[in-house]
């Protein structure tokens, strides 16, 4: 503990969002600083690295207008914290936690470090409570459960926001106990996309909290907004017993911001210029989802990732997929056929599905039905390649049947528009399909 704040006007270098301050007497890693502009404006920043009496600071905002000599830095002796209270519900904040809905800031009940603490693996409860999203390819084949992190892998031009919005609107949790809240985090979103989401949030019956960092707002805020969102989510879930669904869109913008800051720090670049620690950094966000033994609430996460060049092996979707418990992959091919949601179930996966389905969760025949649908659809898809070479006429009757099944599966099971289907309807649709082709 320092007894007073220290003010330094010894900035020696400014590079994009990074500042070097010299002759610093006392500083800690992660400490919050206030950067004072020559005209008196203030902005927050964080200590990244200390080397002797030289300190590297990352500013949380636009550094335009800073100079060497007249600007100064105030060290606060505390790490970055988020104010928390039940009054956050229904509010909209900027990426730096300033209200942007016109109402004044609430009175916080407490302040908590935004980086959070890792959940002890021994205190994690097994995620096994089914969440009904209302979409057959998710509920039936890639079931989401409470406490899971399941990203949507989309590509430019695909309706990922329509899907995320529909999930927000339609989701029902298996059991309604302490209430259901959506935490929505917009990272580098365009105004067009953002206004689409705000309309959806306003129409929702459940409570929500929104953090919005727009495309033209400071890049460094993109690193902060998801952390604020998750800190709020953890508070609502594990202190107030609520079931929280966190939607972060778009993680690609987050990773690009990470790369931008890393390059400014002159760190060694990894694949495609992204820093080598991106896996650990992403994990520090995604792993905050979960349930805790003996506590009522849960944090479920649905991040949206846009795959650059439709490439699932690009570092962003790749590292995401290694951390999250599965992925929902959208397909350009299905979208062009007019199917909504255009979900390709073959590369999609929910790793926690097994414990959330079956007797007591959904229906006893869930696993069996899902397996059969998968098996025959995969076969049909395989045969499409053959069809492209030899033509339909050259194929055996049994093969033609599989081709028809794959088409009907896409048109009737996957394609459902905006109509909500409950799990019974989903499984019945699948069963009827199997019966019609005598594949049961």
């Amino acid at each position: 503990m320092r007894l007073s704040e220290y003010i330094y006007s010894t900035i020696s270098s400014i590079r994009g969002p990074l500042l070097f301050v010299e002759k610093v007497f006392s500083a800690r890693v992660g400490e919050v600083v206030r950067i004072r502009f020559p005209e008196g404006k203030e902005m927050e920043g964080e200590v990244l690295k200390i080397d002797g009496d030289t300190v590297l600071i990352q500013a949380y905002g636009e550094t335009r207008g800073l100079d060497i000599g007249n600007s100064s830095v105030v060290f606060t002796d505390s790490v970055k914290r988020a104010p928390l209270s039940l009054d956050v519900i229904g509010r909209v904040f900027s990426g730096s936690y300033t209200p942007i809905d016109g109402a004044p800031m609430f009175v916080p009940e407490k302040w908590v470090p935004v980086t959070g603490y890792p959940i002890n693996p021994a205190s994690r409860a097994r995620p096994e409570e089914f969440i009904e999203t209302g979409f057959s390819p998710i509920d039936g084949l890639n079931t989401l459960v409470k406490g899971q992190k399941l990203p949507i892998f989309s590509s430019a031009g695909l309706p990922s926001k329509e899907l995320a919005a529909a999930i927000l609107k339609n989701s029902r949790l298996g059991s309604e106990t302490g209430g259901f809240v959506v935490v929505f985090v917009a990272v580098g979103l365009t105004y067009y996309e953002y206004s689409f989401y705000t309309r959806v949030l306003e129409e929702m019956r459940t409570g929500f909290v929104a953090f919005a960092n727009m495309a033209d707002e400071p890049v460094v805020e993109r690193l902060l907004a998801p952390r604020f969102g998750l800190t709020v989510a953890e508070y609502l879930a594990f202190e107030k017993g609520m079931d929280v669904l966190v939607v972060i869109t778009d993680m690609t913008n987050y990773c690009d911001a990470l790369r931008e800051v890393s390059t400014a720090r002159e760190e060694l670049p990894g694949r495609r210029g992204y820093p080598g620690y991106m896996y650990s950094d992403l994990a520090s966000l995604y792993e905050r989802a979960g349930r805790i033994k003996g506590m009522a609430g849960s944090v479920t996460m649905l991040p949206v990732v846009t795959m650059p060049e439709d490439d699932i092996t690009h570092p962003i979707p790749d590292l995401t997929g290694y951390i999250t418990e599965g992925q929902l992959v959208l397909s350009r091919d299905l979208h062009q056929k007019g199917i909504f949601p255009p979900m390709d179930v073959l590369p999609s996966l929910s790793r926690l599905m097994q414990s959330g389905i079956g007797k007591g969760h959904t229906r006893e025949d869930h696993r069996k039905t899902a397996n059969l649908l998968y098996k025959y659809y995969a076969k049909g898809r395989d045969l499409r390649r053959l069809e492209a070479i030899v033509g339909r006429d050259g194929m055996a009757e049994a093969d033609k049947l599989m081709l028809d099944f794959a088409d009907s599966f896409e048109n009737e099971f996957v394609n459902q528009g905006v109509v909500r289907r409950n799990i019974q309807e989903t499984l019945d649709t699948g069963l009827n399909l199997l019966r019609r082709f005598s594949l049961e």
Partner: protein
Amino acid sequence: MMGRIKGISGPTVSVNMKGLKLYDRVYVGHAMLTGEVVRLDQDVAVIQVYENTKGLGIGEPVKSVNMPLTVRLGPGLLRGMFDGLQRPLERLREEMGPFISSGTEIYALDYLKKWSFSPLKKKGEPVTRGEIVGYVEEGPFKHFIFSNFEGRISRIMDGELSLNDTIAELEGGKEIFGCNEWPVRMPRPYSRRLSTWEPLLTGQRVIDLLFPLARGGTAIFPGGFGTGKTILEQAIAKFANTDIVVYVGCGERGNEMAEMIGEFESLKDPWTGKYLMERTVLVVNTSNMPVAAREASIYTAVTMAEYYRDMGYHVLLLADSLSRWAEALREISSSLEEMPGEEGYPTYLASRLAGFFERAGVVETLSGKIGSLTMILSVSPPGGDFTEPVTQACLRTAGAFFMLDTSLAHRRHFPAINWFQSYSLYEKVIARHFIEHVSLQWETLKERCRELLKREESLREVAEIVGSEGLQDADRLLMKVAEMIRMEFLCQNAYTEDAFSPPEKTIAKIGGMVEYYESAMAKLKQGISLEEVLKG
């Protein structure tokens, strides 16, 4: 000895301090974070900190304990769940609540618990270093206690003892306790290495038949995400015929670990009928826990595995995933500003990995028993690209390679082990064991199975051009049988009873399929049409 923090960069801290030795353990800052000295430079030491460095300030004290980073070895490790620094997670939860904050030290073992000790040596008998003096019952196992010194026993206890109590005393006053410390980076000694001759049965047909693994061997299975690495690893942890399993969740998902723990507590070992947890030690360092502790976690685990090997047990070490360990190494190396090698990994990646792999093997222990340590390690190559440095470095030392194939996984063919690209160097050595103990037909049937799959592959290329209708009857029959082998023999659903297949069942199953093919072929030759043959 004390010094003060001079600089902080990510997980590394530099400190003004003389008299430290490389790899000494130190306590960093007011929060007493655990660290290890990784570089000495005149009077500046660089320390790798195993906990989150956020909030650490310049000028804070650093204390040395004059000892390397160690693990505690003694009864009570089984059923335990530890983090990368061997802190017991269950007790950490009881004391700190559901979240882990930095700077808490809790001993891995319970020093107050009483164990019933039975001596195997008498007063006056001589002992050598590493010799067994007695044992305690740890679940279904005899947990042997070793002497750390050479000498003659002057006093030995019998009955209820805690880990704080002296178990025996040697002439000259040296005392033997039930619990020891051992530096994690130093392999435990043995009297000699033996060659491998016995298989480690995994219960996975594709592995046991086509790519068998030897006790004391090493295997890696690389695969992109969604290829079922974790499920396969957990299936092997459940069903392998081994005495003790040490499972390291290295930089992986917390929810999956929770699922696994739940399962292990309720499932039984198919070989002995005991609960799985009773034979298991878990080391868990999930992806959001500190990076440097992730680097240490595999060493913590292998040291505990070697400890049980020294008691003459067959130990299986499973790690998921080695890539996360390599990434931790890379992160630390880059914060030390070392010259990077391929893709930013340090140039010592391959030699570190080789050093780790070589801790596996069959040995005659110092006490004359035979024990083995087998390793099965998963690798997560970025983008599913096997040419990346970690996979390539592992291939140079691993004895078996199970390649997980993304296209098989998309077709829901699990375990998604590619049967053309995978290999096992132990195949020939342990074939004799299978022939002697399971079936005389083992090698012949294996070759038949390979051949059918190989021929299917080439036929498939033809079929893609002419369509399956355009193939001859004999070829269509082969395609049918090969499909049967793929779907019913190579595939194994991890969620049903079929998840575990003993070798007798494995060989009977493939035997049946090969026989069916041969009798059907014979009928075709007699002029019966394929449709008739398939019906009957």
